[in-house]
């Protein structure tokens, strides 16, 4: 057997640069659960290894596009609260997803804002201070060049169940030093942002029939598609337990089946009759009937759910789901195409002052002042817009 978990530092280092000169991010404070994730493990399922990977694949694509990274490059997935990261030994370019915002604090005490869907470069000593992700759900921090971490099963994702991958198979801890993997090419010095947000779908979560959809009796099917289910606090990367009308099975059908393959988004119904939506870290096979599965395009919406949210479900055919996936892909590509220079509050203020349009009564440099169309519509409209 040959080892695949080889640190890539030596291979990735530009010629002649010493390893200790590599740019890195120092974890000042780790956040509640910050994990290295990418598109997940390959060919691990036959060995019982869950897929893992980020919960929001669309955000992974966009964050990496902002940085010029390959689409599946590993990122930091942040949950509940955000880490504080300090650039050391060189500039580090980072990008944040649409649920994160905050400030970059310079060593001299000054700071500048960083808004949603923005790539910015941290000079050595600069610290990235982010607010908790929107609604305390999740957010992604991308790093230009990726992280110098071992590759396991074609991935740098973290598998918490078995404690491997990512940074020693665990969440980040204070003091961790995250070295960059690929330092080739010049580092941009200006901010970029996505100016056309992927407006994610609203309304019921769309599902296709699961392998045991015919297990549900008419009452069960009516309850599942006709009532709403509340996201319970039993929510982690493995799954989301829901609470609502109990689902019942046809006579002779029980909650015990011969375990068969599972997938992220599969909705399984144990004996309690309360559905569980399996997520990225779910086990590879499931022994409960899987009555429906959330379509690929709506999986990112699940990642934004927090306990107390109410979900309703709508059934679509496989052909419809395939059409929705193509349309979703087109929206991601449009969002990537919209990436351009960010609105620079300081520069604009100076320009406006120079043409005497404003008298300084309106603070355009406020961190929350940002082009309105970048917000998802949940924020109050800014009276200055």
């Amino acid at each position, binding site marked *: *057997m*040959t*080892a*695949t*978990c080889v640190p890539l530092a030596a291979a990735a280092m530009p010629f002649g640069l010493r390893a200790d000169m590599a740019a890195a991010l120092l974890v000042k404070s780790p956040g509640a659960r910050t994990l290295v994730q990418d598109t997940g493990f*390959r*060919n*691990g*399922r*036959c*060995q*019982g*290894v*869950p897929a893992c990977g980020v919960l929001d694949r669309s955000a992974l694509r966009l964050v990496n596009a902002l940085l010029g990274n390959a689409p599946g490059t590993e990122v930091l997935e942040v949950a509940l609260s955000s880490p504080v990261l300090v650039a050391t030994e060189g500039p580090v370019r980072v990008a944040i997803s649409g649920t994160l915002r905050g400030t970059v604090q310079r060593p001299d005490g000054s700071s500048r804002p960083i808004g949603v869907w923005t790539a910015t470069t941290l000079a050595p000593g600069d610290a990235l201070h982010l607010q908790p992700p929107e609604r305390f759900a999740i957010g992604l921090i991308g790093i230009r060049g990726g992280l110098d971490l071992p590759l*396991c*099963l074609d991935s740098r994702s973290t*598998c918490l*169940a*078995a*404690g*491997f*991958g990512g940074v020693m198979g665990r969440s980040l801890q204070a003091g961790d030093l995250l070295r960059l993997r690929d330092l080739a090419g010049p580092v941009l010095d200006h901010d970029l942002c996505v100016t056309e947000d992927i407006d994610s779908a609203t309304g019921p979560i769309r599902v*296709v*029939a*699961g*392998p*045991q959809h015919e297990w549900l009796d008419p009452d069960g099917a009516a309850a599942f598609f006709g009532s709403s289910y509340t996201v319970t606090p039993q929510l982690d990367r493995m799954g989301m337990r829901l609470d609502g009308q109990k689902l019942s099975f046809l006579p002779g059908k029980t909650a015990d089946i*011969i*375990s*068969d*393959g*599972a*997938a*992220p*988004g*599969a909705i399984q119904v144990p004996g309690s009759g309360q559905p569980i939506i399996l997520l990225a870290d779910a*086990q*590879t*096979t499931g022994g409960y009937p*899987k009555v429906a*599965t*959330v*379509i*690929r395009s709506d999986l990112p919406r699940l990642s934004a759910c927090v306990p107390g949210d109410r979900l309703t479900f709508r059934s679509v055919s*496989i*052909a419809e*789901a*395939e059409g929705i*996936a*193509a349309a979703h*892909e087109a929206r991601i590509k449009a969002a990537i195409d919209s990436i351009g220079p960010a609105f620079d509050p300081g520069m604009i203020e100076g320009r406006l002052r120079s043409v005497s349009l404003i008298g300084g009564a309106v603070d355009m440099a406020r961190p929350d002042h940002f082009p309105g169309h970048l917000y998802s519509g949940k924020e109050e409209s800014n009276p200055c817009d």
Partner: protein
Amino acid sequence: MRIGAVRSLADTAVTLEMATSVGLEASAKVSAALGAIEQAMASGALPGVSEVAAAFCSVTVHYDCLQITQSDLADRLTGLLGKVAPTERPEGRSWLLPCCYHPELGLDLASLSEALSLDPDRIVALHQATTFHVYALGFLPGLPFLGDLPPDLARPRRTEPRLRVPAGSVAIANRMCVIYPWNSPGGWHIVGRCPVPLFDITCDVPALLAAGDSIRFKPITREEFRDLDRDLRASGGSRDAFRVAC
């Protein structure tokens, strides 16, 4: 080989049911299907397919729905497997795994003895005389589901699952046996402990066992367990030392 049913699992995954009851015959069909699909993937005949995974009676094919539709994929898979002849037994390796049945490690031997009205020595004798087959890996990375447990040892799962089953525990329920590669919650009856690491991420194929393998357990003393456990932790390798000729 005929596919019992093609079941859509997701808009990115489809499950092919190869058998309806767990056993060696199902295992052989699953193993043949898995091999054929892996070969077709390697030859480029299944565009968009990223992974194929096996369970007790079925295989699940994961794919990118932007590259291939499910109906196209299902047709290709049905055609492909139609040309595959099922083997009588799955192809696999043979293992002789050490297992310590000392009551300090076989935590449920006493309660099982009572429930089964069998002497603990008799339980151990029946367990170690059985040639088990790996039907599938699942639940946790590297965890093998082994069958068939002799009917005399069959018991339903514990009514109160343990919050922490120690890594290495060999446990039984119904007609199956598992080895827990990690500390984890679990509801099976623990009869002993195996010191051989079942999952090593530094290996090319991290899981020691694979579906189709067969396993016998070799009883070891508490002292032998302690020494083996220490040696295996220190060396981190030499897992293949427990392979035996078929």
